[in-house]
């Protein structure tokens, strides 16, 4: 059967990275890290369905999630963040989630390993993720302007950073519960 044709869509692109897994591995060993990651992926997968995520792709100790409606992003992010304080696997371990959010066109494709999302805007979301600290979401200005007003509460002042191959990208930081 032929793979469906690639679909270009405007999407809210979320990247989440766990901070602290290297330290956890050193302190408690690889098996504990594997258990934590398994739970992280299972819970994030469940929450992505609950919050109408279009595609979620797991990458090592991170994930990329795409939403058609940007209003669904912050409830999803807060649900994932709450795992740190409510899920026994995460409680008491020095872990933190680093999130980034960008909005723009991306290509949804079917590949030999499953669904994927490609495009320059995925790179921007990844570069923004590098700027995020634990318990924080870095939101591009483009995405912030599309977020519901109540989701912008706590947004810090605007910052600008040059992103390779793109140029200057404006963004702000929003602290998450647990920060």
């Amino acid at each position: 059967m032929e793979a469906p044709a690639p679909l270009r869509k405007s999407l809210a692109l979320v990247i989440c990275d766990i901070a602290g897994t290297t330290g956890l591995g050193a302190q408690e060993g690889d098996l504990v890290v594997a258990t934590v990651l398994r739970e992280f992926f299972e819970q994030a997968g469940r929450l992505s369905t609950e919050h109408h995520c279009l595609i979620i792709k797991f990458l090592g100790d991170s994930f990329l999630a795409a939403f058609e409606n940007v209003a669904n992003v912050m409830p999803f992010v807060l649900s994932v963040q709450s795992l740190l304080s409510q899920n026994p696997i995460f409680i008491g371990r020095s872990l933190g989630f680093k999130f980034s959010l960008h909005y723009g066109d991306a290509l949804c494709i079917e590949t030999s390993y499953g669904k994927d999302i490609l495009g320059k805007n995925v790179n921007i979301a990844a570069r923004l993720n590098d700027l995020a600290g634990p318990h924080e979401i870095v939101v591009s200005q483009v995405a912030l302007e599309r977020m519901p007003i109540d989701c912008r509460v706590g947004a810090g002042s605007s910052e600008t950073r040059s992103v390779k191959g793109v140029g200057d990208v404006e963004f702000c930081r929003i602290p998450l519960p647990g920060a």
Partner: protein
Amino acid sequence: MAVSDAEPMPEIVTEAIVVIDLVESTLTSNLFGWYAVGRQSLRDLRTLIGEVGKVRGLRCVRSTGDGYLLTFFDPQSAEMAAIRAVEAVFELLRRIFARNRQVSEERALNLRCAVHLGEVDVVPNDREGPHISMAFRLEEISRASLPAALNPIPPEQFPLQNYVLCSEEVAGILSRRATHWELASIGLLKLKGFPGWREVFRITSEEHPTDLGSGMRAL
């Protein structure tokens, strides 16, 4: 007195770092014998490395068991060291193809190569530091790494052997200072022990057309 007290601090220099892995060298040695095939293959590789490296600033050749760690230095410009290193790697691949045509199949050499640039600690016959680890992480990237990358190329388009990968730093230098190589991003990857996302590039040369089975065609 502790050993570390007696030794002077190592020299720190910026060098181009190349990691070369001999594809399936352990399997070949197990199948055909270390003394019959494996040892000579590794010695041939070392000889070829010496030949292509000596005029290009090769400073360190360290065995990694199934390959070599090489560093290149240019006294005038660190960026030129990266260009010389890439030149050396492609010349090495060219000579290996020529050699492979003249030897039996089990003696053929096939490589995976990675190039990075960064500050290293110079210790006798070796190099240390995080940039060395980075070069090894780049060399470990394979088709299987791509599903866990952001913006990956299709895994089927990634060759199995005889290819050259490089870091963002080297890609930047090549795009500014060298026109006879092409760079293609293979995706953004997380490399073990290093924070953040790293864009990894594959270097290709018009002189070495791609064949996805073996990475490059024998000319």
